[in-house]
């Protein structure tokens, strides 16, 4: 029988871990899975074991010499000069034992999710270990070694001939995925992120629209620092709906980084949990409207692993499975188990309190600016027939 949704996970995915102090902490996966289990929303039969991506699959996107370098780095055999060339051995992506296997398993998880959705095993698939959108074809960057999203999109194209729409709501620009398909008109990328004025990776401007045949298939909406839920969601909903109606994808891949929250230590946005209730809801609707439900969701950034990520990511699964119980208190059993491990006070409730942060002084201007940015980004597909095509 076809399932509504499947959840790709195994304990081995926690091995994608650089070191104890590194901000990219796989414990957040366990915290999320445990939260869902404690509320009885995730059953053993929902879970599918991820497979490991083969070298051939990685090569859909990555250079063979880079894959070799990652393998060597994982065995401690890569010279420092070469490591730097590949972005390995840096503070962001330091080498660790078995890093190739750990990274290839995360890519494989997204491929597993893609297969489940495309073969009709389930309408939707969630793989929170994925979402490593900064990985480049020959370079590790921003905590990402291999880019599971890029590999999976190429895989969806080659194996299933699918037109893929990629939607990235991580607070950082989805640069790796954008550049991988910059000249490809059969992949449409949309990234909504904090402006690169200060934030990594610095790219993701409105004018990055694609190249050659792919011109016009890359969309970016950089939002201002301190953007709040309402403004973020206005931009996200409008852009997602209009681009999906225009591009008509066969399948949607969403990257669900959870780092646009006010608490996130790496970014400067002012989102709350409300953002993470709404983001998957809209993706879910659009997947049913345009793709017969085909929706693959992956994780991504998210560096407040205690107060933000477990709730935000659990909400993606709860939306996929149309969980209907009212969400108010977090399960006591979960709080009791994890509070003693956490260095901060865990939230008791699903919703954040009203006064989570002090009022943003320039709220009105920020909202206005974000809206204008979105309008500029959507301008090419909003043009009416009578309009002249070029400004001179």
């Amino acid at each position, binding site marked *: 029988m076809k399932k509504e949704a499947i959840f790709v996970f195994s304990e081995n995915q926690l091995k994608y871990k650089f070191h104890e102090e590194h901000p990219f902490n796989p414990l957040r996966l366990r915290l999320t899975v445990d939260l869902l289990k404690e509320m009885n929303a995730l059953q053993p039969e929902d879970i599918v074991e991820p497979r490991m991506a083969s070298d051939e699959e990685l090569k859909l996107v990555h250079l063979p010499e880079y894959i070799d370098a990652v393998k060597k780095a994982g065995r401690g055999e890569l010279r420092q000069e070469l490591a730097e060339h590949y972005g390995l051995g*840096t503070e962001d992506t330091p080498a660790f034992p078995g890093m190739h296997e750990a990274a290839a398993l995360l890519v494989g998880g997204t491929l597993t999710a893609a297969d489940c959705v495309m073969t009709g095993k389930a309408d939707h698939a969630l793989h929170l270990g994925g979402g490593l959108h900064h990985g480049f074809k020959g370079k590790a960057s921003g905590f990402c070694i291999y880019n599971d999203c890029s590999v999976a999109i190429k895989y969806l194209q080659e194996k299933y001939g699918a037109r893929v729409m990629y939607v990235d709501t991580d607070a950082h620009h989805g*640069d790796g995925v954008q550049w991988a398909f910059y000249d490809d008109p059969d992949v449409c990328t949309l990234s909504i992120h904090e402006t690169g004025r*200060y934030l*990594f*990776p*610095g790219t993701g401007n409105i004018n990055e629209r694609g190249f050659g045949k792919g011109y016009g298939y890359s969309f970016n909406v950089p939002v201002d*620092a301190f953007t709040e839920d309402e403004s973020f969601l206005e931009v996200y909903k409008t852009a997602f709906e209009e681009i999906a109606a225009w591009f008509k994808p066969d399948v949607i891949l969403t990257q669900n980084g959870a780092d646009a929250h006010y608490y996130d230590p*790496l970014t400067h946005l002012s989102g709350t949990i409300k953002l993470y209730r709404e983001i998957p809801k809209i993706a879910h609707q659009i997947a049913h409207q345009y793709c017969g439900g085909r929706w693959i969701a992956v994780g991504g950034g998210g560096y407040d692993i205690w107060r933000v990520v477990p709730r935000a990511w659990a909400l993606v699964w709860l939306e996929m499975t149309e969980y209907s119980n009212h969400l108010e208190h977090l399960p006591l059993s979960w709080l009791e188990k994890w509070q003693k491990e956490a260095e901060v006070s865990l939230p008791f409730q699903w919703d954040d309190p009203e006064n989570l942060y002090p009022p943003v002084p*320039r709220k009105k201007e920020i909202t206005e600016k974000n809206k204008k940015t979105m309008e500029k980004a959507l301008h090419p597909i909003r043009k009416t027939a009578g309009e002249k095509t070029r400004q001179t």
Partner: protein
Amino acid sequence: MIVEEIMKRDVISLSKDHSLRDAIRVMNENNIRHIPITDEKRRLIGLVTDRDLKEAGPSSLLHDEKDNILDKPLSSIMKTDLITGHPLDFVEEVAAIFYEKKIGCLPIVSGEKLVGIITETDIFHTLVQLTGVHWPSSRIEIKVPNVQGKISEVVSCIEKHHVNILSILVHPDKKDENYKIMVIRVQTINPGKIIADLKKNGHEVQWPHFSGSLS
């Protein structure tokens, strides 16, 4: 950086006997706005820009007689008093020429022959590349007193974190001439520790903050 590193070498050019119509077609097909005019020995003898063509051509709303005008040779409209550059010129100097002379392109001539062209767009692109924004990185802005040794203090502070610096721009602080602003692109997604360290060492880091001035 010198001009030959950034100039376009395969220059699209026409002869003085080509027509205005030819020039319009070549500009449209190649999405360019400037066409150098060369003789049979590839010596530069003139330049035609899209503005020259617009000035010479009839209004797009007029249809009669248009054909006649477009058949005229480029020698009738090309500019011949040209500013040119050399492959060994410095990019900064050339940028200043663009600004001072208000020109849109600079043909590059060496040994009497046309060897390349640089447009405003190329200069702009080069300056953007110099800021390092095309590599994944975080941007840190630091306000430092305009006295010697400050840049090296800041750099050594970053160095301690084993993070690669992609670019450093230094410009005077417009609001206070006793200070300058350093704009540094560092190759990390997580500059928090660096910023904390810079602040601890008394540097003023300009960063998004709630006070309402995001200048």
